[in-house]
């Protein structure tokens, strides 16, 4: 490559790297944060804060004696009567009462149960929603984002001109080091 065309290549490479970097900055942060959140789905709920409050009922009660009045009296005791939606019997021994943003589950046999309250995790709920590809056009946009990341990565290799920190010297070793981890993972985890 002549020195003039190399100069033109480096100039356009810098422009691509810089502008794609700026444009996709926000999306990169969104996907990285939600990626971490969703990676640890087994350890926490990334979308909702869920709290449980153990409760108990004093009287002996059977499925046939559970009425709307009984349900409302129970909810009133826990200040949830204004949030009532519906109740049903998931099985012969329990009753579940739906309330706004949660539910009340009671085991009629043991006379114990719990109130489950659910609220959306601010920020994480929204970014996880985007991570799940809501709608076709977002799917295409996220594909474009992935292509953008590839362009940012490749153009990044050629940002530094020939020096001790360029691709052919420092760069090549760091690239190999970065590839060792996925190769080891394939070797040991597959």
């Amino acid at each position, binding site marked *: 490559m002549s020195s003039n065309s190399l100069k033109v290549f480096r100039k356009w490479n810098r422009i691509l790297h810089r502008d794609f970097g700026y*444009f996709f900055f926000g999306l990169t942060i969104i996907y990285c944060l939600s990626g971490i959140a969703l990676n640890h789905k087994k350890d926490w709920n990334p979308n909702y804060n869920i709290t449980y409050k153990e409760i108990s009922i004093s009287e002996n009660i059977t499925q046939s004696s559970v009425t*709307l009045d009984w349900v409302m009296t129970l909810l009133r005791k826990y200040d949830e009567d204004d949030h009532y939606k519906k109740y*049903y019997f998931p*099985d012969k021994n329990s009753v579940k009462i739906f309330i706004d943003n949660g539910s009340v589950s009671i085991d009629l046999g043991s006379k114990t149960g719990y109130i489950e309250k659910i609220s959306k995790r601010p920020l994480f709920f929204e970014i996880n929603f985007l991570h*799940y590809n809501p709608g*076709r*056009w977002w799917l295409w946009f996220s594909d474009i984002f992935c292509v953008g990341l590839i362009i940012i990565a490749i153009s990044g290799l050629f940002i530094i001109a020939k020096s001790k920190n360029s691709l052919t010297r420092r760069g090549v070793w760091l690239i190999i080091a970065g590839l060792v981890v996925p190769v080891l993972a394939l070797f040991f985890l597959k």
Partner: protein
Amino acid sequence: MKKLFFFSIIVAVIVGSNSSCKNQGKQTGADSTNLSLTVDSFLASPEAWAGKEIVIAGTVSHVCKHSGKKLFLFGANPEKTVKINAGGNFATFDIKYEGSDIEITGNVVEDEKIDANYLNEWEAEIKEMVGDKDQKVCNAENTAIAGQTGIDSTSAEKTEDPYADVKEFRNKLEKSGKPYISIYAINIISLKEIKKEPSAN
């Protein structure tokens, strides 16, 4: 100008892909039957609806709180539920639908194949669950599967044995002589909430 050039390309591609997708979203199958069903009538013979577009109404017993990717509907019998999968315009289901009456339009698909491996994993899950008494376990999926195959997972004697469903499935699989039992679910196309006055059942 040069800088703006790149952004123009990006914007043009996004707009182009969006307009080409708009028509796809509205398409429905030419062999769509659009039958309106209750959960119980669907569960009477789910295999009969496989591959068809149906409308089904029921009450939401559970929305998956981890992924939001599935919800479960029940009809007259709360012990029998059908699974609805998110997708298309519904990336996830909002938790607010729990306890609500809704009407779903969707395609019936073979969602799960219950084979020996599936039962082994299920057994391992139960083992973990039994070990941690404080854990609040999401059993909605297994309830839906049991309901569809006519297994009563809620009888008094079964609450004593956490492995009862798995055992019954093993027997059923053996008797069927097939390598697996198919479980059907519905892939959502659209959802409509049916507003009612608060009531029981």
